[in-house]
């Protein structure tokens, strides 16, 4: 008689956390069209990586366009990530991490000690 094995259920309780939905954009790259990507663009706008282009008026599109690719590259540079221009797993994981609400690039000047 085969006895049933013990099943361990691991509950991930981050599913109602802010930005959890961004996991669905993992592996997206230029040319992709994914419903809801405009929300991710708003995130990038909020933290100073992206501005709304004139041809998109008040809203972002759901297209991973060249401007968004530039924003992703800028973000990857700022966070010391491999610069791929794609929403690879490390980039998405960093985007979803809890963070400070202060913009990363807008109204800032960078300095280095020489």
């Amino acid at each position, binding site marked *: 008689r085969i006895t049933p094995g013990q099943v361990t259920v691991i509950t991930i309780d981050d599913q109602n956390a802010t930005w959890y939905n961004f996991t669905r954009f993992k592996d997206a790259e230029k040319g992709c069209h994914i419903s809801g990507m405009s929300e991710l663009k708003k995130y990038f706008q909020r933290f100073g990586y992206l501005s709304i282009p004139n041809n998109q008026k008040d809203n972002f599109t759901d297209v991973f366009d060249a401007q968004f690719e530039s924003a992703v590259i800028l973000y990857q540079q700022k966070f010391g990530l491999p610069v791929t221009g794609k929403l690879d797993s490390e980039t998405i994981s960093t985007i979803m991490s809890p*963070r*400070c609400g202060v913009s990363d690039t807008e109204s800032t000047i960078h300095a280095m000690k020489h």
Partner: protein
Amino acid sequence: FAYFYGRPRWDRGSSMTLTYAFSPTDMIDYISLPEIKTVFKRSFSRWASVIPVNFTEIDDYPSANIKIGFFKGDHGDGQPFDGVLGVLAHAFSPENGRFHLDEDETWAIDFEKVKSKKAIDLESVATHEIGHILGLAHSSIKEAVMYPSLKPRSKKVNLKLDDVEGVQALYGSNPNFKYSSLLAYENSYNK
């Protein structure tokens, strides 16, 4: 390290003292006020140990230079909080002094006592936001206190060389500060 545009800083003369106060109404109740005050005192002390600036707690919230409070959602400064995780806190550049923490987070000062996977270390966030209050923007150095993100259940409270050089370029060095002690600490940490 980086600064806000125009490199704003507090300017209160040669021997600078900045006062801070906690909101009499907008606080959390699951960590006692004395414990919160102890955490913030330590956080302010870290910055005070490297620059010639003193921080003194006062009771009079409206007149304090730095005003600390916990707020939920839209709290009237144009930067609404967003619920659990996401944005944890924000603070304004000099000489504004507003220091806001998201009330919806599970704030913790001891991860042994708080088991939530979403617990956020209050002292780490406090130390980071004080950097903004003083005029530092976000750093690209992952180990720096001024790096923008912080994982739940993690701590980052010790100033790194990047943080120290940035803030000392704004305010000068505390006469008692020794780079050797910071470097010794960083070397031991790296090992």
